[in-house]
């Protein structure tokens, strides 16, 4: 059966271009990459290289200009397929709902039975350490807590593919490391495939099984680096010499690209 194929997501010749009064802007690609089932993949690249566009294409939030994206063997169309969850960088909590109602929002829309919804809510609150905040409103929470609510809201839908678009971008370094640990815990607990878009090289090197490095716009995959970390890992690996070597390798690949993104005329 297609669903048991080791390839969970596949991108072939995916490009994205935007038309405007100034002409055609080639934003992305062509991109070819496969995500294996239950794998943790990070994508790093310079600012404006099209990382978030790539995530939007995979999530079917925007159509590619060319190429094919398949999820569990089926081509992705115009609507977000079942089994995909997305966590965005921006605060996407619904401010008029409390934490519990935010988390169960999608479950209510999908008419999941109440006892089942409550069970999933309890699990998510516990997993994300939000038990004491179920009745709090987003405005009463810190940025990190709000992002946990958004992650919990994604998890209760039991996605098989979790797409994360710089989810910790607005958080301080310590909180990011701790949230990274939580993300690894969730990844192991759910068995989902995770694709993390980030600009933080250390975050990518610490969390991912493989790190794909993108070029400056139009973003293409320059190289995919295997980290070879064990599945049971946490943020303590940042003190290991291999972590430094991976981060250094990522920076070597990205330095020229980042400079090009900053000063396109100088390179």
């Amino acid at each position: 059966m297609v669903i048991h194929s080791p390839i969970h997501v596949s991108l072939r010749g995916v490009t994205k271009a935007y038309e405007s009064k100034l002409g055609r802007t080639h934003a992305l690609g062509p991109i070819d990459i496969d995500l294996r089932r239950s794998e943790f993949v990070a994508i790093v690249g310079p600012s404006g290289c099209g990382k978030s566009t790539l995530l939007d294409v995979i999530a079917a939030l925007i159509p590619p200009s060319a190429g094919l994206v398949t999820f569990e063997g089926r081509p992705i169309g115009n609507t977000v397929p079942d089994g995909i969850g997305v966590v965005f960088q921006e605060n996407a909590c619904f401010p008029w709902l409390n934490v519990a109602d935010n988390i169960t929002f999608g479950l209510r829309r999908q008419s999941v039975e109440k006892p089942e919804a409550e069970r999933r809510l309890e699990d998510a609150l516990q997993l994300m350490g939000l038990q004491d905040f179920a009745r709090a409103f987003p405005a009463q929470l810190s940025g990190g807590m709000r992002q946990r609510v958004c992650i919990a809201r994604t998890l209760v839908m039991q996605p098989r593919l979790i797409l994360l678009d710089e989810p910790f971008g607005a958080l301080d370094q310590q909180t990011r490391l701790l949230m990274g640990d939580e993300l690894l815990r969730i990844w192991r607990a759910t068995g989902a495939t995770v694709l993390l878009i980030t600009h933080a090289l250390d975050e990518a090197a610490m969390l991912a099984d493989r790190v794909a490095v993108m070029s400056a716009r139009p973003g293409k995959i320059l190289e995919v680096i295997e980290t070879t970390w064990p599945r049971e890992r946490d943020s303590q690996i940042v003190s290991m010499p291999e972590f430094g070597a991976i981060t250094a390798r990522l920076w070597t690949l990205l330095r020229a690209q980042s400079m090009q993104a900053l000063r396109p005329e100088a390179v």
Partner: protein
Amino acid sequence: MHIVFYRLVAVFLPLTILEILCREHVIKPLILPAPSRILLGLWSVVAKGAFNAAILKTLANVGLAIVLSIAVGIAAGAAIHRSRHLRALLEPLFSTYYAIPIYAFYPLFIVVFGLGDAPQVLIGFMLAVVSMIVGTLAGLDSVPAVLGKTARVMQLGPVKTLRSVTMPYAAPYLFTGVKLAVAYAFIGVIGAEFIMSGTGLGYEIRFAYDNLDNDVMYPLILLILIIAVAINMSLDRWDRVLKSRRERG
């Protein structure tokens, strides 16, 4: 506690001064009766029930103007929000809209709609609807793009997105539009009753004024004041409850 005390002082101190000035005949009763006399007059007007029909007529016309302006304002605001060209065309007009003296069109409305309630409701509606359109536009502008994406990830269709995400997010702005629409509808309808009408509170006040009947005119003015303030204060309270959840606790 202090703020409530000062607020009461701000209301009752000028009233007390006015009461003394009226009782001492510094202000003549023909110009303004003492506030306590106006209050007693209001009780007598309400108890007798002579103006119940006028009160009901005004409230019904104001209510109709409010409902129409909210429904049309939200629909028009949503349509203008979707069309960039329509917005570019109309938005500059909204900022100058309240410079137009709408009452100047009253004779035209009478020619077109006759002497019934329609011209009064129309003036109330015309004054109120633009504040509702502007409130709707501000509300829809405020919805972050990420919430739209979240709705799509949750596989909500356009109607469900509007009902479950866009409208609840925009609610405080819409509510500001509603509050203004209520105030403008009162001003429009009662103003129109003043100028040319055979019924309603505005007409009764003008009739009492023409007959130098201060015992009716001032109590009716007070009645309008009480109704408008009571409605606005309840809306304001509701608004604060709505906003308190969203602001940092």
